[in-house]
């Protein structure tokens, strides 16, 4: 699993470097959860991206598109050459996830706060269809400043959506500053617990911990799950990690890419 995550980190960086800049920090922070989802847990088939009854992922923090594309490429949805077309005019890979452009993307996201509601709708739909699918959703900690996240969380618990497993990318940063300096979640575990979720808080860049948390979440019978991923924004590349809040969207040169790939090896 670790080696796949490494491959996906490389592809994420190559994807972003192909146009010289992009949402690096928040892409790298969720590579590990994407790896465990697509290579261990999700019932999906890259040859049939629209297969009925498949598990679905809504990346509500839609700006992490490059990490998702790298994962989809690693899984066989997207050819490698296509990965290097990020944000070029008429590309299938726009900066924010688009279900009508990219095979394997289950929901269009980017306007923060909306994706979790869509995931709740999918979880309700899956229960109606009785197809046994799991709906996964990744939300940002900064994104959780949006009120719609809490509207959706309330209703997910009200409807006992045990087939909904939500991840919080708790990397502590947003565009303007550290989240604690802007509008802090203070104690996200307590918040989602009080909203009626089964909550686990783990080291969010550990594939082993993520795997085990998903297994526990799947064992829930009448509660949606929140897995708080304590992550590092820009995880894996020291010069990106040390940039701090400015790594949300940053340039990356060919030399920096080479340096980063060297570090990952």
């Amino acid at each position, binding site marked *: 699993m670790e080696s796949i995550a490494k491959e996906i980190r490389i592809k994420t960086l190559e994807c972003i470097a192909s146009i010289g800049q992009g949402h690096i920090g928040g892409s790298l922070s969720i590579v590990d959860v994407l790896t465990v989802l697509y290579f261990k847990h999700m019932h999906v088939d890259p040859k049939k991206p629209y297969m009925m009854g498949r598990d679905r992922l809504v990346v509500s923090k839609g700006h992490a598109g490059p990490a998702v594309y790298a994962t989809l490429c690693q899984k066989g949805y997207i050819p490698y050459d296509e990965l290097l077309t990020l944000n070029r005019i008429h590309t299938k890979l726009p900066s924010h996830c688009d*279900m009508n452009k990219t095979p394997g993307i289950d929901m269009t996201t980017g306007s923060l706060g909306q994706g979790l*509601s869509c995931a709740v*709708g*999918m*979880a309700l*739909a899956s229960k109606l269809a009785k197809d046994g699918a799991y709906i996964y959703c990744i939300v940002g900690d900064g994104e959780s400043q949006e009120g*719609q996240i809490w509207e959706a969380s309330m*209703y997910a618990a009200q409807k006992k959506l045990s087939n909904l497993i939500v991840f919080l990318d708790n990397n502590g940063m947003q565009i303007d500053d550290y989240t604690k300096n802007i509008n802090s979640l203070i104690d996200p575990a307590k918040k989602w617990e009080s909203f009626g979720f089964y909550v686990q808080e783990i080291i969010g860049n550990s594939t082993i911990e993520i795997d085990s948390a998903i297994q526990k979440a799947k064992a829930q019978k009448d509660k949606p799950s929140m897995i708080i991923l304590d992550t590092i924004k820009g995880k894996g590349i020291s010069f990106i990690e040390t940039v701090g809040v400015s790594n949300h969207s940053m340039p990356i040169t060919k030399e920096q890419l080479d340096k980063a790939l060297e570090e990952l090896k």
Partner: protein
Amino acid sequence: MEFRQAMTKTLAKLMQEDEKICILDADLSKPNGTKPLYEQFPNRCFDIGIAEANMIGIAAGLSAYGYKPVAFTFAPFATRRVCDQIAVSVAYAKQNVKIVGTDPGITAELNGGTHMSFEDIAVVRSFPNMIVYDAVDDIQVSQAMKEIMKIDGPAYIRMPRKKAQPVFDEDYKFNLFKADIVEEGTDVTIIASGVMVAEAKKALELLKQDGIRAELISANFIKPLDEKTILESIKKTKHVVTCENHSLIGGLYSAVCELVCKECPQKVVGIGVKNRFGQVGSYAELLKEYEMTPQDIYYAAKESLK
């Protein structure tokens, strides 16, 4: 019959035939008349609570899964409150979500300024992929809903809740994306939508007393506008008036002006709300307040003939 009764009766029938149709409410299932559907189809009706943004997102998620959600709330909350949710999760994402905005414009009556949407059409009309329908009466809305539900894409249905002034009779046949020529005429074209079709019909009688034969067109769809029917009529009469229960900014008047500007530039006289907010009052009082009475339409037609 009330609009809401006609709507619920139609949906009950459609839901029996199509198990993909779902109903969503935001704590207004009683006022909007959808409550009986919850007993008949308990699994497919969702009262999301007072959280309209969440309701639209959930509808988009249901649609992404192949369901056909119909989301109800008052017109201002169905549009301006959830503008970005409609733009991104529904229209841009090309989701099959039908949104019913009830009590548009002055039909909000005693709920007053906060609940009175004169801009709902303007908000949703500018989004690509959106269809905008303004219901005329109960007979029409029953037929229209059946047809609109066949469209695989988003639509905004604008409809009062209460009793309709009858415009169409039992022989009426609704055609998707078609305007109706309610009465033929030769002197001036009056294009009306929603409840204003009934008011314009009354104005026709006043005009007849002056020997003016107006052609009354019920636009039905503000988007897509039935350009063919409208242009044929304008080219025949050479004079045009629009009537809408909405602001003159962004609604029917704007849509007709955009068309006329392009195809046959000429003066268009608009009946509708002139850059003002709403307020409390009865339907009749508000019609007068915003200069939308049959008498006002009569004067507008005369002005267009000058």
